[in-house]
């Protein structure tokens, strides 16, 4: 019998991503942490639509059990939107680096105080 152990591991991975976002002082590292968080959310979502012993949701004669296609659709588009927004974040980092000369959180705050 399968349990929910996969969800525990996914939660642990999600929390490592969240920890990196909060604990790291470097904005680029925070962004990487965010992408780890994102991947774990995707996996939790997809895991809810799995049906044991079923086929991928591509209709074929002679197959009557399929996994749930709806989470697949939602996550598929989310992945591509995710890379587009990540590119936007990277472009923002490039501009921040140009304007401040650093991507360190504390140094950025200090420069803002000075101004």
């Amino acid at each position: 019998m399968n349990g929910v152990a996969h969800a525990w591991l996914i939660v642990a991975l999600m929390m490592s991503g969240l920890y990196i976002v909060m604990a790291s002082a470097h904005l680029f590292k925070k962004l990487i942490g965010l992408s780890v968080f994102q991947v774990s959310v995707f996996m939790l979502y997809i895991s809810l639509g799995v049906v044991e012993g079923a086929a991928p949701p591509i209709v074929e004669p002679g197959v009557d059990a399929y996994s749930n296609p709806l989470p697949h659709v939602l996550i598929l588009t989310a992945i591509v939107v995710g890379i587009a927004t990540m590119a936007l974040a990277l472009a923002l980092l490039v501009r921040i680096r140009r304007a401040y000369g650093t991507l360190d959180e504390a140094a950025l705050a200090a420069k803002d105080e000075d101004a």
Partner: protein
Amino acid sequence: MSVEYGLTLTLLAFMLLAAWALARSDDLLAAVMLAGIISLASAAVFTVMDAVDVAFTEAAVGAGVATLLSVRALGVLGERRAAGRARVGLPFLVVLVCGGLLLYGTADLPAYGDPAAPAMQHVAPHYLARGGVETGVPNIVTAVLASYRGFDTFGELVVIFTAGLGVLTLLAGSGVSGARSEVDAGDRDIIVRQVVKWLVPFVLLFALYVQFHGDYGPGGGFQAGVIFAAGMVLYALTFGLPRLERVLPPSRLRLLAATGVWLYGGVGVACLLRGGAFLDYAVLAEDAVDGQHLGILLVELGVGLTVFSVMVLIYRAFTRQRHGGVE
């Protein structure tokens, strides 16, 4: 416990290990590579979970394009290490509380692979039973993506287009103007050049297959767009950006990006003009199923065009940046 479930758990444990190394490492390039590994492992998890379309997308986007863009951005930023130790205590506490609550929540989750799970109760049975008949498309993921939830997907496409515009706007005006050896020459290694020269046509052909076979197998506009873009980026990496720009001038890419959104919206408006609802493809042909199939084919083409051109434009914008330094 089934073999598949064991495999999922093993892969997840492997990803946790990579995440642990990621949290500990100060090297930013190592962080990008570890995130790529996590992403590729998640693609394997998606395959085990029967989400073949998702796995496909994650492998091409998360492990491929995201890693490439991150490395490019690192080069532009001129940063190597995440120096400066920050807080440890408070984040750890927050993660502990948050994770504890989530673990408490997992007690109510249905067991992995339960066919009677709540997620299987509502629209999913209808999609699976009627989707293939109503749209004429055996890949139910494509049918739901482009037809049942076509409105959603249109929104997502506009988000991608807008994000692309944002990147171009943010990075406009700070690019290199004159010739630069790295941008111009690409990779000089003869083996790399020969292999890529033979590989690129097959990558592009595969992308077209994924685009137009997405109705019958895993694939569709999102994946095809990214793979086509990957082929072009591979060409630019090897032979230099100017060579790519001779084939695909940026002005044409910008036009293509808008054309994709326009095509998707245009199909919706055509449905309105023919007396149906927005994006109700059934009215596009004499036969409702033929109309659905035609509509799905056209909007997927729109998705492919926009995703492809936005990806190449974003890659180009980062590649043309001056490396490091302050303005």
